[in-house]
């Protein structure tokens, strides 16, 4: 980070040198690389967190310290020797929860290079999520984690703009960190620390052919994947787990544990894209995608303590398990479509697509239970299959009644089947299969009476005779309407409305779901005054869901009711000091808020204010104040509030 800060911090100086050279050479145009852009450097203070620091970290996770707050600059070479331009963009760096760097370099007709790097903090510790021991005064999220995920991507296109373009790419995704998880034995669960680490590398190469009447892309990809997770509890400690009640007079506990996952995998992918326009009234497009990832797993577990196997009424003091497993997942996706323009005002879009995924897995394990009297080995061999075949046929007809009014009517038929099975059958559900059948009708209208106003409305309704899950879309209606109006060049207003109703009246399901959301936004920027501009939005959402289930303990009929009524608003007003001319300070103030009622009443406030003071032609000083306030009516202990103050300079060229 320090190196990056130094490099980026020194770029404006480099730019000044380049600019000086350019000025000295005037009026002859400069042939030296020219740097333009800006860099923001500063320091951020977190002024103490009131309330739950873990919730603060789960949502915000910003820390005090020096920061590269942002960078966006372009280096252009007028001579076009090695590059035409290099663009660099970076977001906040310096122990931040989300850091990113993006570099684009290109030389017209020769190459196009992109590099992207991101580093995310994944922290989650919310006792309300998973703390069975909260009633005993133990505050612990038994499914928490503190990891960082690093994502990198490189891509290189050779001869961009030519009729054939080879390209190459590499994507990397890795994560590592620690957390809390649970070791599950037959009659108790023991929260234990764990370490997490995984990485995926994807390599790809392909070629694009682009001719006036057709396009073809062929691409091959491969991935390498590995994941290691360890659960560990050192000897000498006693973990009583989530159940402290004795069984037959004995308490269950865990005194040592080592569980290690070693997961590796690889895959090969093929991709083909095609588009063609054989005649002036017909366009054809299609794609074929195939992948076959597989994984191999080695799992080892050794634990000691006092455990109980309920099915055999057996207490045991140790367990050793070794498992090997493998899974393979051939996955084929394809689509073929056409846009037909039989008449001037009519377009017909026809599309067929399919997605077929077949997963097969097997696991062989030897589990040995150790007691003071004997060792009980338990071996098992399980095979699994999961398959889904999905298909869709869609037809849309567009009619341009005028240049301002377009109607669309469509029909979509969706069908498929899914099944899964375990062999040998054991336990609760060993096999199942379902069918999917949906008829969907669609209608929409787009009306643009003038450039300054547009209205769009879309309605979709479906009737089903088979879906995969109880909560799937069954008999549903979707509505979306958007309006945009710009009464003045300096004023625009937009509205957005969505509605979704879903009902599954079948016996044993009885699902009723309805949601709608309305938003309104306004932007006003009186250019004549150049003193201020205002932007704001307000959104209201309402969600109701009812679905029945049987209480597992006594099989009594219950209803899962979920309610969420939310209000969110954002606003920002920018004010420039009217008499400052070139060095006028600017103030921005606003922020966002969210409040909800229903199943999890929540409030979240983020007011912000920022002051800009120009110190020179290329230097601005700024200070930002930001407040975060989070509260939950049902989980008061998870609320927090904090203030962040940032100050820094923006250097521009």
């Amino acid at each position, binding site marked *: 980070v320090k190196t990056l800060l130094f490099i980026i911090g020194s770029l404006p100086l480099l730019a000044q040198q380049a600019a000086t050279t350019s000025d000295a050479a005037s009026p002859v145009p400069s042939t030296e690389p020219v740097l333009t852009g800006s860099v923001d450097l500063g320091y951020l203070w977190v002024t103490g967190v009131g309330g739950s620091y873990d919730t603060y970290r789960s949502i915000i996770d910003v820390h005090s310290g020096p920061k590269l707050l942002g960078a*966006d600059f372009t280096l252009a070479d007028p001579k076009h020797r090695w590059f035409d331009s290099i663009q660099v*963009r970076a977001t906040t760096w310096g122990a931040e*929860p989300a*850091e990113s760097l993006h570099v684009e370099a290109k030389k017209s007709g020769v190459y196009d290079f992109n590099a992207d790097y991101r580093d*995310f903090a994944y922290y*989650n510790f919310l006792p309300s999520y*998973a703390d069975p021991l909260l009633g005993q005064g133990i505050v612990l999220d038994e*499914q928490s984690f503190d990891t960082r995920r690093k994502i990198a991507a490189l891509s290189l296109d050779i001869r961009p703009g030519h009729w054939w373009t080879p390209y190459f790419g590499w994507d990397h995704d890795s*994560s590592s960190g620690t957390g809390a998880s649970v070791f599950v034995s037959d009659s108790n*669960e023991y929260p234990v620390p764990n370490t997490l680490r*995984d990485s*995926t590398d*994807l390599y790809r190469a392909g070629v694009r052919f682009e001719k006036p009447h*057709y*396009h073809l892309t062929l691409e091959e*990809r491969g991935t390498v994947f590995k*994941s290691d997770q360890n659960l560990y509890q050192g000897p000498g400690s006693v973990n009583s787990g989530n*159940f402290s009640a004795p069984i037959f007079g004995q308490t269950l506990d865990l005194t040592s544990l080592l*569980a290690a*996952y070693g997961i590796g995998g690889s895959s090969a992918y093929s*991709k083909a894209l095609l*588009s063609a*326009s054989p005649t002036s009234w017909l366009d054809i497009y299609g*794609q074929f*995608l195939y992948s076959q*990832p*597989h*994984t191999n797993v080695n799992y080892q577990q050794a634990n000691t303590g006092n455990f109980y196997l309920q099915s055999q009424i057996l207490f045991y003091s140790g367990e050793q398990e070794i498992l090997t497993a493998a*899974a393979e997942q051939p996955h084929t*996706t394809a689509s073929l479509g056409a846009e037909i323009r039989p008449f001037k005002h009519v*377009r017909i879009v026809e*599309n067929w697509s399919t997605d077929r995924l077949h*997963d097969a897995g097997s*696991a062989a394990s030897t589990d040995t239970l150790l007691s003071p009297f004997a060792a009980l080995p338990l071996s098992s061999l399980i095979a699994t299959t*999961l398959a889904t075949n999905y298909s869709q046929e869609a037809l849309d007809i*567009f009619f341009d009644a005028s*240049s301002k009014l377009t109607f669309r009517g469509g029909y979509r038929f969706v069908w498929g089947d*899914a099944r*899964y099975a*375990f062999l040998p059958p054991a336990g609760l559900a060993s096999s*199942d299969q379902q069918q999917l059948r949906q008829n969907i009708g669609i209608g929409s209208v*787009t009306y643009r009476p003038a450039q300054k106003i547009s209205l*769009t409305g879309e309605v979709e309704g479906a009737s089903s005779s*088979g879906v995969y*899950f*109880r909560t*799937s879309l069954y008999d549903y209606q979707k509505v979306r309407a958007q309006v945009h109006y710009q009464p003045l060049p300096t004023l625009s207003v*937009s509205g957005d409305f969505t509605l979704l109703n879903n009902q599954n009246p079948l016996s044993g399901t009885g699902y009723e779901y309805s949601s709608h*959301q309305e938003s309104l*936004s306004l932007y006003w920027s009186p250019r004549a005054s150049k003193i201020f501009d205002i932007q704001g*939005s307000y959104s209201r*959402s309402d969600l109701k869901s009812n679905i*029945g289930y*049987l*209480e*597992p*303990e006594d099989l009594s009929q219950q209803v899962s009711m*979920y309610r969420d009524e*939310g209000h969110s608003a954002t606003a920002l007003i920018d004010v420039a000091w009217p008499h400052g001319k070139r060095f006028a300070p600017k103030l921005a103030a606003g922020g966002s808020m969210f409040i909800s009622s229903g199943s999890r009443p929540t409030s*979240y406030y983020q007011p912000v204010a920022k002051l800009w003071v120009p110190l020179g032609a290329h230097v601005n000083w700024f200070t930002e104040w930001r407040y975060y306030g989070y509260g939950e009516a049902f989980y008061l202990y998870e609320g927090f509030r904090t203030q962040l103050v940032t100050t820094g300079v923006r250097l521009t060229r």
Partner: protein
Amino acid sequence: MTRSREVLLVLLLAAAPGWAAAQTLPAGYAGSDTCKVCHEDIYNGLAKNPHHQLEADAKKGWQGRSCEACHGPGQAHTEGPSADNIRNPANLAPAAADQICLTCHLNQPTQVGRPESSHARNQIACTACHKMHSTDQPLVVRKAEATNKLCASCHLNEWAQFQRPFHHKLPESAMTCVDCHNPHGSIRPAMLQSFAANDPGCFKCHGDKRGPFTFEHAPLRFEGCQACHEPHGSANPRMLTRAEVRFVCLECHANLPVSSTMPAKVAGVVPPSFHNLNLPVFQNCTVCHQKIHGSHVDRNLLK
């Protein structure tokens, strides 16, 4: 157009035949230099745009008349400088405006998904997102903040969801809408990006959830992550669709026995289990069934 500009135009057009002769323009075309006389700011904006290569690259076929590549022959407009005498894509029906873009961009990878995209279906023209000759906006906005602002200008509801406490990091400009959605269309629902070849784009960042698993959790494969998560934002931890984990699970695993002969049966409705939901330990199913996205080791997703 003001009176003085009209006079200036007439004077300059008087000299235009000489330029036209030098450039040997096809009949009906005026040439970019003529356009520049009145529309200098627009011409300068185009000069910063990748489409400016039309002006210089003879292979593209529009050398010296790049403006007319989109606006059509401009000779009539120069003779009678009325807006009615020139093609303005902004005044055309969106599909007609798109056809102008597709004259050159039809046979490219973006076209493969475009006709099926909700943008094309709802008459969102290319120019709604791409600016050809704006002086303050590039052809494609690249900065995360600008990209999200552009999408949010229409998708107000989706942007409002990101104001909820648990969300993907778009308001922080650490991600963009384009990281998850392909605005040109995708073979996946909701124009979702894909990872590798045909996996959901979610796995680009959540690689540990991708599998394949020895023991799969079917909804992940059949309906995707949004079966349990609100990907834009939620007031519920882990962006879940319900406030408590058990209800996410129980709404499918309802314990209602379903006969395999029922015509409209659904998956996952296992026969009764006997967990006592009054005990805190059973109120979050993922305390034990922690490998809820799929397990390499255990059929009950316990480890």
